[in-house]
């Protein structure tokens, strides 16, 4: 009934359908921040410490690649240090919002807001479904805001970048990371604006 040719054909089809994704994925940081910056910085001074402290539980990789059955087939690694590029992207997003951003406290005003970030998680993973797959990227950052004038505040941000597709190649992973990063940047900049509006003495000249 089943000829030798039939078995070979069946094996080939099953192999293709299994979606063997054996190649490691290299996650790239987004090349730019928000498409439309959030205004409101008014030249107030902020010091952004770079890189963020890397306190991830899993530091050896930034995600996992899966086959068509949801089995782990390869790893996803970050290009560069995510704790560095997230700090750099936040600094450039704050500049785009109109803040005066410094990288060190030297020369900063007494009232300048200082931001220290802690990277708690960045992990991309395909969640394989019947019809399509959702590549989800979890990103978790804690910001600690201080000033020489006595402020001490902190806030934790958690976002999930998502991208649904019938294939999940490196480009799809990168788009998922980009979605997550932009969501994270938006949440952080809005929160910083809230904090500085709550304490308008922060960052201005005396």
């Amino acid at each position, binding site marked *: *009934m089943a000829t030798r040719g039939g078995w070979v054909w069946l094996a080939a089809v099953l192999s293709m*359908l299994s979606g063997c994704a054996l190649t490691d994925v290299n996650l790239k940081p987004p090349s730019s921040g928000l498409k439309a910056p959030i205004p409101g910085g008014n030249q107030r001074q902020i010091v952004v410490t770079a890189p963020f402290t890397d306190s991830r539980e899993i530091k050896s990789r930034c995600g996992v690649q899966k086959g068509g059955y949801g089995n782990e087939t390869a790893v996803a690694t970050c290009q560069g240090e995510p704790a560095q590029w997230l700090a750099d992207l936040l600094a450039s997003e704050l500049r785009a919002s109109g803040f005066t951003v410094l990288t060190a406290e030297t020369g900063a005003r007494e009232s300048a807001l200082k931001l220290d970030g802690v990277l708690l998680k960045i992990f991309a993973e*395909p969640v394989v*479904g019947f019809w399509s797959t959702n590549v989800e990227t979890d990103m978790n950052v804690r910001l600690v805001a201080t000033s020489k*004038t006595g402020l001490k505040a902190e806030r934790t941000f958690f976002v*999930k970048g998502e991208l649904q597709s019938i294939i999940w190649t490196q480009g799809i992973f990168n788009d998922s990371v980009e979605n997550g990063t932009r969501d994270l940047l938006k949440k952080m900049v809005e*929160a910083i604006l809230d904090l500085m509006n709550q304490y308008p003495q922060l960052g201005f000249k005396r």
Partner: protein
Amino acid sequence: MIRLTLLLLLGATALVSCSTRSVVVAPDQVPKLNDSKWTVTSEPAARPR
């Protein structure tokens, strides 16, 4: 015939199985992991007039 049927069943079962999350959290957990406001433990001094 039996071997072919078993193989087809195995393939079909594998194809309909969906993967679960191993490290990422379920989407409904995200709001719980997000602080809705700053925790301020010390306020800055007021601007001198």
